[in-house]
């Protein structure tokens, strides 16, 4: 049943969001801390565990794959509802701050990816 996969996906998201909100309260932060990330971990766990096979294989699996495939269209809709006009209206300060943050962060991607690999290699040698 396709809906089994959809239900599993939904339960993962709800459980992740609850955990994220709880973490936020626990840390004294007005935000959901990693709710979606936790939900993703739950789904990865479920799809790698034999016990959940009936919920992730066959027709049930296509229920999850459908939403995975709808991801890009949903992101396009998300782009179409952003407050682009406000970003353009923010003036020079907002523009410079936003652009500078992105440029510096882009530049750090290869640096940090390398650090990850170096510690990995060092760990392997030890």
């Amino acid at each position, binding site marked *: 049943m396709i809906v089994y996969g959809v239900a599993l*996906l939904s339960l993962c998201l709800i459980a992740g*969001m609850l955990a994220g909100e709880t973490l936020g309260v626990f840390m004294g932060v*007005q*935000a959901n801390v*990693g*709710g*979606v990330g936790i*939900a*993703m*971990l739950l*789904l*990865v766990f479920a*799809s790698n565990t034999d016990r959940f096979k009936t919920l*992730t294989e066959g027709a049930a*699996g296509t229920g*999850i*794959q459908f*939403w*995975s495939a*709808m*991801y*890009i*269209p*949903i*992101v*396009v*809709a*998300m*782009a*179409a*509802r*952003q*407050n*682009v*006009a*406000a*970003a353009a*209206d*923010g*003036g*020079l*300060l*907002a523009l*410079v*701050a*936003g*652009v*500078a*943050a992105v440029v*510096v962060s*882009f*530049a*750090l*991607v290869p640096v*940090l*990816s390398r650090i*990850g*690999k170096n*510690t*990995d290699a060092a760990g392997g040698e030890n």
Partner: protein
Amino acid sequence: MDIIETVFVRNNLIVAFAAIGLVMWVSYFFANKLTAGRIHGSAIAIALGLLAAYWGGITTGGTRGVSDFALLGGIGLMGGGMMRDFAIVATAFGVKFSELKKAGLAGAVSIFAGVIVSFVVGAAVAVMFGYTDPASITTIGAGAVTYIVGPVTGEAIGASDAVITLSVAAGLVKSILVMIGTPLVAKSIGLDNPQSAMVFGGLMGTTSGVAAGLAATDPKLVPYGAMTATFYTGVGCLLGPSVLYFIVSAIF
């Protein structure tokens, strides 16, 4: 006219599916015919979406882009946080534990590095533009983290409304630039494997920007980037009004 409006508004989510489907078809058509596949169809679709959002914003004066047009209201639901998170989680289906473990440490480091670096850059720009009070500098720095961290921090430490608005604008600029810029720089920053995607998500942090940027680069990388990005805003909201504010207060 009345009949069309009634049907469109009453079935607004369905209208959104049809409208987005049309945009995707046009985008992939142009990507294949005009650029011979060099530019990803989804990159064109996202750019069209942003253009439409700008047009919607200046035409209606609203804050939700094209979805402020009554006939396209369903795009607000389809592209809202609920559906976005649902679809992001679905992309994790089929991800292997081993890949996550490999980049776990680098991913975690990148979240903290990303928040602090963006904050410092944003705060420096605020100082450059002549701000001298710690609350304003901190809030604008927090806005460069994400457009959620900015107002959360600003409200917590009592920044002025004008500064909070600026911080949101800075965060929006960041998010939009990540959407457009990621596919363009992906090759030169080595963004072609799960590990660098996790680092990328942690450094950029804007969930919308990372989600769209990776989708337009290589959809296979989406779950890895999204996984770390979703922790970023929480860490930002944690550090912004506390440690980072204290440090800024100590300096200014």
